[in-house]
């Protein structure tokens, strides 16, 4: 008789919501026996049992006992938890249960688009996922890296994979932050077939790392016959990364932006991170300059105090003044504050309109000189004004979506 193997996945404690705990034991005979304790038993009891059995079948499991303690997990979560438990019990299983449809909620990735806000959602906290996009971040990041403990990496990977296949993230850019190294390669294999728009690459230190990752992504894209669309967003989080920022930004046409991560950066240079941020001023300026030189966006780090809205606003105004195009968020309430700070002021818009009008008049009259009242306007001033109006147009389009 073969050894019985038992494994557990998911969570079940008094605070658990919209999640479940699955205990899986492989057996030699007796078919698939499912025992369910669920707060939604009367509503979805049969549906839960059917899904658990379907996942077992898809993974080639013929005989097993499963116990599900459910606190209202949505089907994409339940399926991920069952699959994780099975794969923890038997690491040789490579088959997968794929709910939903990767095409349904994906759109063509756009290299240029507003990225004022990128909201990080922990990859192993499925309860936050269905509603995250309703808070309208420009980019929504399902995070497999720092927000997931090492022993839950496998679980989060399947939750994120299933989320990308089943949840409509609206017009938010769909992004995944993968892990470093071989874990990151496994992450790519799970998520690239689900057509995310962007892969965030943590702790990027040089152009080779970008090129290696692009090669890995292409391998997965080729295997699944997907268009070569997935964009890359390297995060600079070390002194070396800052030094190599321009090479990183220009290593591949897939790079759409550079982000800076200040918790790791300040640790790397051996200083405390302060709210004022003097210690990272050089790094932030270097990243902005490298990104702009390479023709990509520059995105600032997150503001970690979710209760300090005034601090966040002031910090975002500073980010904007330094040349950043966006800022990270760790809580949805930060989103409107950042969007508001990035919005050009009425005064800026008014002035930009007058400059662009004056430039139009000058062009039509064939005059090479643009003037506003008694003042001569230089070409870069016209370009900046055009950029302000372009941002207003983009942001308004984002706000107008419903």
């Amino acid at each position, binding site marked *: 008789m073969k050894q019985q193997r038992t494994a557990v996945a998911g969570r079940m404690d008094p605070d658990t919501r919209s999640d479940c705990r699955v205990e899986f034991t492989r057996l030699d005979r007796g078919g698939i026996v499912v025992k369910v304790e669920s707060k*939604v038993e009367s509503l979805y009891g049969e549906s839960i049992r059917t899904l658990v059995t379907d996942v077992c079948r898809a993974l080639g499991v013929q005989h097993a006992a499963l116990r599900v303690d459910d606190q209202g997990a*949505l089907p994409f979560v339940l399926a991920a938890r069952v699959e994780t438990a099975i794969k923890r019990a038997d690491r040789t299983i490579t088959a997968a249960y794929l709910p939903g449809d990767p095409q349904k909620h994906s759109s063509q990735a756009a290299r240029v688009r507003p990225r004022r806000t990128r909201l990080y959602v922990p990859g192993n906290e499925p309860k936050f996922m269905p509603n995250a996009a309703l808070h309208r971040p420009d980019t929504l990041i399902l995070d497999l890296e720092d927000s997931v403990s090492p022993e839950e990496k496998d679980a989060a990977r399947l939750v994120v994979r299933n989320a990308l296949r089943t949840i409509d993230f609206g017009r938010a850019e769909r992004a995944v932050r993968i892990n470093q190294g071989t874990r990151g390669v496994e992450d790519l294999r799970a998520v690239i077939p689900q057509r995310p728009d962007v892969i965030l690459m943590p702790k990027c230190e040089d152009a080779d790392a970008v090129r290696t990752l692009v090669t890995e992504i292409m391998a997965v894209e080729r295997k699944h016959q997907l268009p070569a669309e997935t964009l890359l967003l390297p995060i600079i989080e070390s002194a070396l990364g800052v030094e190599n920022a321009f090479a990183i930004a220009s290593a591949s046409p897939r790079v759409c932006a550079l982000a800076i991560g200040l918790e790791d950066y300040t640790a790397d240079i051996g200083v405390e991170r302060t709210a004022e941020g003097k210690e990272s001023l050089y790094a932030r300026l270097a990243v902005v300059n490298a990104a702009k030189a390479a023709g990509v966006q520059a995105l600032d780090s997150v503001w970690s105090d979710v209760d300090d809205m005034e601090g966040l606003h002031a910090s975002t105004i500073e980010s904007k003044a330094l040349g950043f195009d966006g800022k990270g968020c760790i809580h949805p309430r930060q989103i409107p504050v950042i969007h508001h700070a990035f919005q050009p002021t009425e005064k800026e818009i008014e002035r930009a309109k007058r400059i662009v009008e004056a430039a139009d008049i000058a062009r039509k009259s064939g005059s090479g000189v643009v003037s506003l009242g008694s003042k001569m306007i230089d070409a870069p001033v016209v370009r900046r004004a055009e950029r302000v109006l372009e941002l207003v147009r983009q942001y308004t389009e984002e706000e107008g979506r*419903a």
Partner: protein
Amino acid sequence: MKPSGSFVKNAAGRLVPRIVNGMAMRPFALVEGIAPKGTTAGTLIRSCRDYPSDGNKSVRDLKEALRRSGLRNGMTISTHHHLRNGDALTALLFRAVKELGVKGIRWFPSASFPCHEELVPYLSSGVIHHIEGSMNGALGRFCSEGKMKGLGVLRSHGTRYQSVQDGEVHIDIAVIAAPSADAFGNANGVEGPSACGPLGFALADAEYADRVIVVTDNLVPFPCIPWAIQGNLVDFVVRVPSLGDASKIVSGTTVVTRSPDRQLIAEYVARFAEASGIMQPGFSFQAGAGGTSLAFVLKLKERMKARGVKARFVRGGSTQYLVQLLEEGLTDSILDGQAFDEAGVRSMRSDPRHVQTSPFTSYNYHGKGNFASMVDLVVLGATEVDLDFNANVVTHSDGYLLHGIGGWQDCLFSKCTVLAIPSFRDRIPVIVDRVTTLCGPGSLIDVVVTERGIAVNPLRKDLLSAVKGSGLPIRTLESIRDEVLDLCGGKPNPPVVDVKKPVAVVKWVDGTLLDTVYRVGGKKRE
């Protein structure tokens, strides 16, 4: 109306019992209610010769007061939920009833709370025959599982007043918890260690009950002022060491939701109030003390300040946030039925613009008008809503009775009724094909605001056109429902209930029967 056994189908298409606890009932016929006939109930004429001329109506203890009130088997005893989840008096009361060897009591509370779980043994042993009032937590489970001896009767605050006034419910003994009282029986809720705010819910009971017992832990020399309850209506005054746990009677501070999704709902409601033009100088609104409602008040306040708009009145339950509106000059008055936190109690005690109301002034449908229909905007919750905007507030989708109606039904008569609800809870869709229990007819529900968008009742073309072009995510209930069912994995099964075994009925504001709550388990609903 076709009879079906002991049930009859009402105008809302719901089967309701013909007889409830031995009394013939009328089925729901019209949202506007059927025309009442006859006169209101009266009470026995009393004489000063039977009461002490020195005004001292104190008796030794509750048992003595009950005995002298003529307590007998099968009587109706009423209590009130002013002490909320801190109430210790109701447990004392039923211990006394039990010790007097009395059984079969109809308990007629204005609401019950989780702390009343300790009454379950009295229900089991038959001291309490059945409850007519809200049934939450353990009492809700007890009733839903068919263990209560009689049928539960769920009424709104207004309908509770109506049933007493119209003589449908005759209260034998009213027991009124008074945070402050004198020996004559004058009482208020704003002073004393158990201060709770207004005592308006006890008004009907004081006026119509045969016997009225005031129980206080803060006996003051005559006169107890202000007198929210007049001593002239009171038979006995009992002093007890404590009415309850002050920290659970009012919270130190009421807490705004931190859930980003509920914050988003609150934001949408506030934006809707502004975009629809409801938020204009002199307007009025009512929102509850739930986290979403509090967040809504804060977000509306920002908009009122930005636009320089001041309300004429706001309706309580009061909280620190409503008190701030009053103190910052953003409303002329608070008309308050209950105070949820210390700031609410303090304001009612010290600010003449913060006024006590009662179910009579606010909600009673059998009167010469009430305040509810004059409110411009009311923001409520619900457990379920169907595609015709019919809503449920008493049962969950699994059939269990878990909430009371409160003032919810009465508030539906406002000029704009908004349900601010999540589109799903965990894996429980909130927008359903058929509500488990009908509590509010859809024609009175104007807007449903969820985190996924705002649905405006097609009957309210005026509101629809007012918010057009506002940038608000206006959607149909169907489209929100479909999106949620997609996430939840299809339509849920209907609750498993025994349709032959009613456990409670839901009244409409005119006293007719709107729907039935069934025993959970057993045969499936067809």
